[in-house]
């Protein structure tokens, strides 16, 4: 293994995933370095979420390799990957409805390699809830939170795992301008604490504000990778967005 590989945190190499005849992720390769915030972009249906699912183990890859910290993880199960230090949020938010917000966060820390449970977990959960702005709702069933607050809760649960890599799947989507600024500040703060973040995001303001680099996908393949401003000017990226739905062209114009 070369020196370059040992300092990458995550290395996706020719990862491939098919659904029947459709190749959702086709020979996708990219690297993440410790402490980076990288955007995973692309029009709807370009395979971004599937790529996230391959990394988190929610779906098995049909080809290629994924290395985390130099260790192959593409054949591991989700719970093993989580314990290695990769946490995620979901595009369609998944909170544990009847459980209290505090228990939702404790669920995130009770099964990591050095588990926290009981009183210590409750105290730590309260800290994390405070960090995402939910400290007043600790005892409330998660299902009774607003959609936005459920997203915050999901982030707190992911952080409870004390991950080294955080996968955010459209975590900033649907926020109002004030919430968006808070969200961006929160992610910056996470980056400041040394966390590496891979984010699928359509909100271009956030991508510009947070991501030093971007990987752009189209129809399952990587069409561009590099510094954010440069990648978003790439003719092929612009074409991919303009060639997509009306929605996407507006996003690209905005970019």
């Amino acid at each position: 293994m070369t020196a370059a590989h040992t300092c990458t945190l995550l290395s996706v190499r020719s990862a491939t995933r098919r659904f029947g005849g459709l190749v959702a992720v086709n020979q996708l390769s990219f690297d993440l370095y410790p402490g980076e915030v990288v955007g995973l972009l692309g029009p709807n249906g370009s395979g971004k979420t599937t790529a996230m699912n391959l990394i988190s183990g929610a779906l098995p890859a049909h080809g290629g390799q994924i290395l985390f910290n130099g260790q192959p993880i593409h054949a591991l199960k989700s719970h093993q990957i989580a314990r290695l230090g990769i946490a995620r949020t979901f595009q369609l938010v998944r909170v544990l409805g009847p459980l209290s917000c505090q228990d939702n966060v404790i669920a995130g820390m009770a099964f990591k390699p050095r588990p926290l449970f009981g009183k210590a977990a409750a105290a730590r959960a309260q800290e994390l809830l405070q960090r995402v702005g939910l400290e007043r709702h600790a005892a409330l069933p998660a299902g009774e939170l607003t959609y936005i607050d459920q997203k915050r809760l999901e982030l707190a649960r992911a952080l409870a795992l004390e991950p080294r890599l955080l996968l955010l799947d459209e975590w900033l989507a649907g926020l109002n301008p004030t919430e968006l600024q808070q969200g961006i500040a929160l992610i910056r703060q996470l980056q400041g604490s040394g966390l590496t973040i891979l984010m699928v995001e359509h909100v271009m303001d956030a991508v510009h504000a947070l991501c030093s680099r971007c990987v752009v996908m189209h129809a399952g393949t990587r069409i561009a990778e590099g510094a954010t401003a440069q990648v978003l000017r790439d003719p092929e990226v612009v074409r991919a967005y303009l060639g997509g739905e009306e929605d996407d062209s507006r996003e690209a114009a905005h970019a």
Partner: protein
Amino acid sequence: MSRKEILAWAAGACVLLGLALLPRWLEDDYYLSLLISILMYCVLATSWALFSGPTRYVSLATVAFFGLGAYVTAVFGEQLPWAAVLAIAAGAGLAVALVVGLSTLRLSGVYFVIFSFGLAELVKQLVTWWEVNVTKDLGRYVFVDITQLDIYWQLLALLALVLGLRALVHRSRLGLALRVIGEDETVAKHVGINTTHAKVLLFTASAVFMTVTGAIMAPRWTYIDPSIAFAPVISFQTLIMALLGGAGALLGPVLGAVPLVLLFEYLGAHFPNHFSILLGLVFIVIVYFVPQGLSGWITRFSRRKKGRP
């Protein structure tokens, strides 16, 4: 342990002692036999809820394990000491549950329900095949030196054990893991829960209690054949009792088992020819009107009293 919990355990111990002494004041054997039926279903429904309550995997395999236990008693009851019979029953339940659990708990939702029902039928057919082709005798007599009172006390001890275990599991990490699995298995995996381990562990524990219940109950029948020991109605009644009481609450299954055993006893005595129809009606009424279970009702009622919505 908090003060409230210590009080709860102490209260539980007192109730247990009271129930253990209860037969002293019973003059009619009919009441003892009724108490045994109630206890049997309390144990079965609580064991069922041990696994199915938090995970929400609806199992119809109860009678597969119950019948297995009954057959262990029928086969070994005469030659071996009683403790050995119970140990063999527990071991058999453990082995079958491990094999079944490891191979099927990847299924979820309706597939698991159908599979568990199929499992009970499969075991029944296998035993029938064996009796017809190998022993050449479909029925068996159970001659064991166990009195009704022994059965009562053993079931009571078993109920105390399974309730205690459920209480301990509920407050442990395993309990949290099962609740997370019940809510969202994808999330469970992504917070690091080995869902297969957690499910197989609890499924097996639950099955062991069911098997031992069958072993303890067998002497009461004196004669068993596969259609008695593996009667599907036992699985259905266990399920509906747990649902009526509320499978999520510790005492929910007991809350459901007591009134339903009494009701079924009444229906069976007064309308023997229409029992199945009435049983079906009871199922419909419960699922339709008490979807949250009695324990859910009580919680909501007490909340409203405290002035919370």
